[in-house]
């Protein structure tokens, strides 16, 4: 057996519920101390994977190795992890202290030491005075932190978090993101967090595992995932992305709707595909002049709607009736300079590095309905998925 | 010295009773609830090493239970169950023949005819009609003097009698009518009677109690219950139909397979004693041992003369056929009055 540098290794994991395949050939390695997010629309198998790691679901095939120990068939009691559930699952009839000490009682820890540990944990989560309260008397954010403290109390080697922030309101959620990250860094505990919120994953994780229909779509750092989405699915799911169906006419030529456009990059050999670019990567121009078509994609579109979004303005632009609208995000000042009015035609220029082209995929990869569950997706993406 | 001996004897006696705890004998019975205590007390004071555990229900139910438990008997003995029922059990081979000491002193008709009898009779209980004076007056009902009287239209809806399927009294009535009137006329009589019956009750004493409470003016029941109720102050009289009164014996027997055979035999021995017969006489005018009977208050002294010449063998052998026929004729009829 070769010694690996990875703390947790998952190899060819498969799990199904009846005829439904929830996890399909999942392989994954996590380094010690790493913070990994499982990201994906709900129902894609994130929780199932997390529970398989915890031993709460039993896979049909595959191996799980945790710090060089094969834990594939161990019951949860014999594995080494702490877990926080979406519902927190705090015991409502026990005080906060009793909740945190719940796992300690079993470790034959002397009473005094136990109290000491509970106190330290309460301080660690910044709630030193709530030990005698019951969970029902706490706010959602406080409950969440208590659940975290309980999971950490037994000093597990692996921390599992299943959508720990989804039940909180926006403000608390932002605050706790930072707290959890800080605590994780401080303790250096290997952590896996499940979330369907791309912002959460992008801001918190060292690495993100994007999942789709029980498979891994992409593994990478937040930057990689955002900038180089490996598949159309990832592109659609992470950040907003304009996606337009296109017919390939030549190596550098595409049919967008009823218009032929020249692309700066060489297109793969296929008939059809999807052209994608992010709304913020577009430069708006009054005319097609002065743009290098070898480095930029250029086309004209009509301004249909203007939405004020706070830090920026989102323009909805129509290229062609057959195509979904294109979103273009411009800074507020830039928008003021542009002084565009509805109905006006503008030129859109997108640099080559920001352009993605996804050849038409196998049917099962772009099933409609996936997009429905992803809340932050742009209008264009929705329409693509629906088409 | 003498004192020492007495003490020693007492000590021995004490250890003896302590060592052999009283055997508990499970006895199935259809005796009336208010008789059980005195019977058990009398028996247990005569035989301190045996305790009686009564299982009491009406005749039909006790018979049914005994039959149901045929493969796994729960009873050790039976005391105070209709002889017709015991004859059925005997036919099923469920009774252990035993000849109690002193059985010769009983009237022969109270003892099973076999060499070693399977059952012995205790007393006889006799059909009679309870007649509520107050209610009868309200409805203008004359006191019936014969069974045939009861079929008169005037009594329509004013009669209650026990259901022979559950009640021993009910069965002795039916069996006696079939014997007195003959099979064909007997059923004819019951057809007519059925027109007047308001209700068939589960137990044999209930019609008389209903008459006593004015729930019905006339109840066909048995004499002992009537006498008791009169003594309690119920406004009823007893009528003894002239064609003759049906009757049955209360009898005792040992259940085959009992593991307390000795105690069961003790009970049988007691059941034929004079003391026991005297006790039976507290409730019944006719008992198994001749010469014991003394008159019971409000109980006719000449009742023995009014009893029909009952053929138990016939009543037992035909029991299931008669009950089936009866059920088919009268039981399913939901509205007895039309």
């Amino acid at each position, binding site marked *: 057996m070769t010694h690996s540098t990875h703390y947790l290794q998952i190899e060819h994991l498969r799990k199904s519920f009846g005829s439904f395949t929830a996890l399909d050939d999942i392989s994954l390695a996590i380094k010690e101390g790493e913070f990994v997010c499982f990201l994906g629309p709900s129902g894609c198998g994130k929780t199932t994977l997390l529970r398989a790691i*915890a*031993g*709460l679901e*039993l896979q049909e*095939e595959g191996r799980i190795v945790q710090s060089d120990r094969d834990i594939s*068939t161990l*019951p949860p*009691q*014999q594995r080494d992890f702490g*877990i926080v559930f979406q*519902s927190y*699952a705090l*015991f409502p*009839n026990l005080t906060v202290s009793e909740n945190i000490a*719940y*796992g300690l009682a*079993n*470790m034959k820890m002397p009473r005094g030491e136990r109290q000491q540990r509970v106190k330290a944990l309460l301080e660690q989560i910044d709630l030193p005075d709530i030990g005698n309260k019951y969970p*029902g008397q706490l706010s959602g954010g406080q409950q969440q932190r208590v659940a975290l403290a309980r*999971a950490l109390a037994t000093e597990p080697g692996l921390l599992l978090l299943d959508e720990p922030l989804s039940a909180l309101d926006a403000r608390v959620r932002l605050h706790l993101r930072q707290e959890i990250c800080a605590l994780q860094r401080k303790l250096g505990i290997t952590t896996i967090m499940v979330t369907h919120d791309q912002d959460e994953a992008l801001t918190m994780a060292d690495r993100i595992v994007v999942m789709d229909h029980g498979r891994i779509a992409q593994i990478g750092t937040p930057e990689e995932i955002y900038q180089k989405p490996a598949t159309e699915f990832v592109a659609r799911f992470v950040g907003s992305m304009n996606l337009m169906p296109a017919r390939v006419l030549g190596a550098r030529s595409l049919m967008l709707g009823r218009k032929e456009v020249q692309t700066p990059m060489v297109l793969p050999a296929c008939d059809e595909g999807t052209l994608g670019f992010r709304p913020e990567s577009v430069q708006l121009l009054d005319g097609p002049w002065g743009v290098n078509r070898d480095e930029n994609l250029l086309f004209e579109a009509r301004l249909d709607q203007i939405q004020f979004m706070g830090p920026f303005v989102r323009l909805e632009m129509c290229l062609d009736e057959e195509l979904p609208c294109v979103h273009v995000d411009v800074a507020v000042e830039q928008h003021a300079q542009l002084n565009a009015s509805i109905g006006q035609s503008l030129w859109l220029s997108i640099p080559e590095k920001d352009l993605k082209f996804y050849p038409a995929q196998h049917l099962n990869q772009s099933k409609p309905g996936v997009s429905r569950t992803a809340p932050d997706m742009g209008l264009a993406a929705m329409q693509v998925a629906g088409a | 010295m003498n004192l020492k001996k007495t003490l020693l004897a007492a000590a021995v006696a004490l250890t003896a009773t302590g060592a052999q705890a009283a055997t508990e004998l*499970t006895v199935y019975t259809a005796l009336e*609830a208010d008789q059980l*205590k005195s019977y058990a007390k009398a028996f247990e004071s005569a035989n301190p090493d045996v305790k009686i*555990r009564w299982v*009491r*229900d009406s005749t*039909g139910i006790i018979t*049914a239970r005994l*039959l*149901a*438990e045929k*493969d*796994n008997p*729960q009873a050790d003995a039976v005391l105070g169950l209709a002889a017709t029922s015991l004859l059925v059990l005997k036919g099923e081979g469920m009774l252990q023949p035993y000849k109690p000491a002193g059985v010769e002193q009983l009237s022969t008709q109270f003892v099973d005819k076999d060499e070693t009898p399977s059952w012995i009779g205790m007393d006889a209980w006799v059909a009679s009609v309870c007649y509520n004076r107050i*209610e009868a007056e309200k409805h203008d009902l004359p006191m019936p003097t014969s069974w045939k009287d009861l079929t008169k239209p005037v009594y329509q*809806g004013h009669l209650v009698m026990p*259901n022979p399927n*559950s009640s021993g009294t009910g069965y002795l009535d039916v069996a006696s009518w079939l014997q007195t009137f003959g099979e064909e006329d007997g059923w004819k009589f019951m057809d007519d009677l059925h027109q007047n019956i*308001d209700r068939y009750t*589960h*137990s044999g*004493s*209930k*019609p*008389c*109690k*209903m008459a006593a*409470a*004015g*729930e*019905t003016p006339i109840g066909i029941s048995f004499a002992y219950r009537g006498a008791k109720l009169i003594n*309690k102050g119920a406004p009823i009289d007893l009528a003894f139909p002239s064609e003759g009164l049906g009757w049955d014996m209360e009898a005792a027997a040992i259940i085959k397979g009992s593991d307390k055979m000795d105690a069961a035999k003790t009970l049988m021995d007691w059941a034929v004693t004079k003391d026991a017969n005297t006790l039976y006489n507290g409730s019944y005018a006719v008992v198994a041992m001749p010469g014991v009977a003394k008159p019971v208050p409000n109980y006719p002294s000449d009742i023995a003369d009014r009893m029909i010449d009952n053929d138990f063998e016939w009543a037992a052998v035909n029991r299931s056929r008669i*009950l089936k026929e009866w059920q*088919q004729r009268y*039981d*399913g*009829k*939901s*509205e*007895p009055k039309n």
Partner: protein
Amino acid sequence: MSNTLTIAARRSFDSESWLQRLVISLGVLFLLLALLAPLLTMLVKSLQNGAGEFIGLHNFIAYFDNPALTQSILNSITIALWTTFIVVSIAFVFAYALTRSGMAGKKTFRLVTMLPLFAPSLLPALSMIYLFGNQGILKDWLPVESIYGPVGIVIGLSFWAFPHALMILITAFSNSDARLYEAAKSMKTPPWRVFLTVTLPSVRYGLINTIFVIFTLTITDFGVAKVIGGQYNVLATDIYKQVVGQQNFQMGAVVSVVLLLPALISFAVERRVQRRQSALLTSRAVPLQPQKSPLRDALLTLFCALVCGFLLLVIGMAVYASFITFWPYNMELSLNNYRFDMMDGGGWASYFNSLQMSAWTAVIGTAVVFLVAYMNEKIKLMPFARRLLQLLAMLPMAVPGIVLGLAYIFFFNHPDNPMNGIYGTMAILVLNTVVHFYTVCHLTATTSLKQIDNEFEAVSASLKVPFYTTLRRVTLPLALPSVLDISVYLFVNAMTTVSAVVFLYSSDTTLASVAVMHMDEAGDIAPAAAMAVLLMLTSLVAKGLHWMISHQILQRTQRWRQR
């Protein structure tokens, strides 16, 4: 599947999950032995002759050839239909008044309607005798000639079944959505149309459910028909007569099978409806605030007062009659009727047996029901066994008590059954009663367990705390109110039930509820009423204790419930 098995088989030894497997298996075994096996034995008996030889459908042919017996099917259905119609109509208006009107005194009305739950079903029947019998105080009010028969059965059953119907309908009415009424009002819909288009559809499933529950309850009832039925035979009393009167166990089994059918059908329909009802509940609704409307409220108050008056009259009559020395000729008050030792049925010993039996049933039953429901709800092992468990747990609801009792004789008194030692003991009475009332308890436990977070078991596994510790420290305390509910439900029903235990008691274990029946059979109606009253009082005391415990002790130990 085979893969799962191999991985599962490779799973390293884990004493905890084996303990869980063991408990689930024991639960399944318990219900198989105490419910399914007796019923199947009975089914087999119905195909045998007296000597135990297989004779196919001969018994059934004999049964259907006998018009006297088949008449009872019609009678049972007639009784059940009438009672269902009367009870459901009255309960519908009553529930409407309690939930939708601005009527005053709702709490009092609600309390009074609960009373019949604590009385044995024989009590209203005995009351009928004193109210409408030949010496009854209200005899002249009776529109038919005699109370003994269908009319008496229907009135008695209506009294007894009413609170059951009311409970379901109140729940149905409480679940409606105020937004629909506001919408209707904003469209100026006349009240009768609102009733037809909003009110009725929203309680539709509750109504159907009630109809089937009441139909099942009444078609299987034994006690009322036994006391007040006169010559009007129904299926349940036929079973009793066949068995005790005719010694015809095979025919008893046949009638039992016949009685099982309508009960099973209506049970199946009810389950189906129940499922839809719960789907309806998940929608987000705004609770309706009842509005005042003087005329309607006055009419409804009058209606409720009449209904409650009737319930109190029935109970009051039984209480009063139990103190009368010798009805109707000596109306002096005395305690003579409470001298049970002079009566049939086992005397005061029966009462104490009943207390003992009920206490055991409450303790053992609650423990078994809760543990089985817990395993079924919270432990994810052995899916097939758990599905079987769930099915078996629902079955007792459809099995009439008298059928279950007879099935127990067949099964537990069989000489080859190694468990036949419990025949005739307290144990068989407790076992039978637990099984007889299993379903409602199981549903109560399951409902309360469903409200408890499903991840507690996973959390404790991750903290390496055994599941039984979490069961003791967390789940049980959380479910304590419903555990208490179950135990008092079992106690009260064990105290008052007649039908299932009537075949199973022995002379050492005579029961008070059966004694009521025996005293009535022997014609001692007043003592029977006295015992019934005593049973009702005992049940009320138990309920009172339960109330005190849940309001006093719970308040102290369950501080966490306060927010």
